[in-house]
């Protein structure tokens, strides 16, 4: 069973999370439910620092043995930091999707975009519905 989605952050329909760090910066990654669907993650393609992205544009790629999946940015802005550990330890996403498996930090263009994302409860309801 997937770990519960923490209430301290926001969620996209595409299974990304965004944690507001203050100062207009979010940390983002994929949810534990997403890593369960993907199973063994064996490769992560990280964005370049300085990359400018729009909300819900592909910001990274995660690959399992069998599949290749885009990861979408929950917000518009500029990539200011990436989780370099994922290059040698992609399995961190399987082990700790909401923590050590974070993917990137983004300086938001429009912090109000966060309001368009789901709360943890809404996200949990969505995956529960999709599962049945």
């Amino acid at each position, binding site marked *: 069973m997937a770990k519960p989605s923490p209430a301290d952050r926001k969620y996209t329909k595409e299974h990304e999370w965004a944690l507001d760090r203050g100062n207009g910066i979010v940390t983002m990654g994929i949810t534990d439910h997403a890593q369960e669907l993907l*199973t*063994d993650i*064996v*490769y992560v*393609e990280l964005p370049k620092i300085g990359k400018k992205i729009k909300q819900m544009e592909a910001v990274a*790629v995660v*690959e*399992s*043995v*069998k599949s*290749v999946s885009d990861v979408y940015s929950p917000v518009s802005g500029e990539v200011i930091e990436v989780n370099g550990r994922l*290059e040698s330890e992609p399995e961190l996403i399987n082990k700790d999707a909401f923590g050590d498996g974070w993917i990137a930090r983004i300086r938001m263009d429009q912090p109000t975009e966060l309001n368009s994302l789901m709360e943890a409860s809404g996200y949990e309801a969505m995956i529960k519905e999709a599962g049945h």
Partner: protein
Amino acid sequence: MKKTPLFERHRQLNATMIEFGGWCMPVQYTTVIEEHRATRSAAGIFDICHMGEIELRGPGAKDLLQGIMSRNLEGQETGQMKLSVMPNTCGGIIDDLTIYKLGDEHYMVVTNAVTRETDFEWICQARNEKGLAGVTIRDISDDTGKIDLQGPKSEAILQKITKGSLAPLRFYHFMNTEVLGTASIVSRSGYTGEDGFEIYADSRRIGEIFDALLHAGEPLGLRPAGLGARDTLRIEAGLLLYGHEMDETITPFEVIYGWLVDLTKPFTGCEAFRKQREEGVKKKLIGFEMTDRGIARHGYRVFSNSREIGHVTSGTFAPTLGKAIGFAFVDGAHEGAGSEIDIEIRGRKVKARVVPLPFYRRPKAQNKS
């Protein structure tokens, strides 16, 4: 979608199911890597009921096969199986299959799932053209269940429910025996690069055999394994997959199957093979490993010094080797081991190197041949 006799068991085992060649098949039960590692270190059990079996029996059966298979079946003993290609008149591969000699003028041909009907029609047509009316050809696929048991612990597990000793059985040989009291054909063969067996039995009994093997094998580390692990295991072992490395436009000389072609006998396609052997091939299948980060996948383009030279046919992360590997078709001049190539991954060229096949070979002590 067609279901195998083991379908309900896959559901009970919580497998993720996918469509493969018109069949609803388990791709994984837990994760591909877990099932892959279990097969290399202990054993994996695979539902292979989707593959086809065709029985040929009666006077002329051997001549019929000799006339349509690339492999020379002269000297094949009862109890021995042979891998062969069945070519069309241009030398293209209609199917790669295994031929079990059940007795004089009595054979079982094991086909891929997607090629079963084509193969059956091709073989029947050849019989009619050759006037070999004495050969009865039966598609026995629906009545025949097939399980592959693969990995170093396979013999110990299968022995628990098999009549007669498996130990003397050599690689690519089979015995008619009883598994769980059911008449079965058991061959020492498979598609993973490990020691192991292919087991054929009545499709109405195959479920019970599957259960008994799982039960007998669990203490030894046996795991049910899906098509995902089957694919990563076969790629590491340098084994080809019909529809990826082979089809009706690809000849055995272009892949690594030149050794399956015996030009000392006449058969369909032999003229095309003679010509190709003289003229050489324009494209060739190679194995590669990624030297930069990235995983090449089916269809990705291959470059050498920014010139496009081919495409990837199968590519994956290799769990045993811990790196990304694959097969590609490239034009003739770039096939040498050690050659540097680039593979385009999402618009970016990533470095790879041509390497000898297979990528993985099991420790010698486990060989039985």
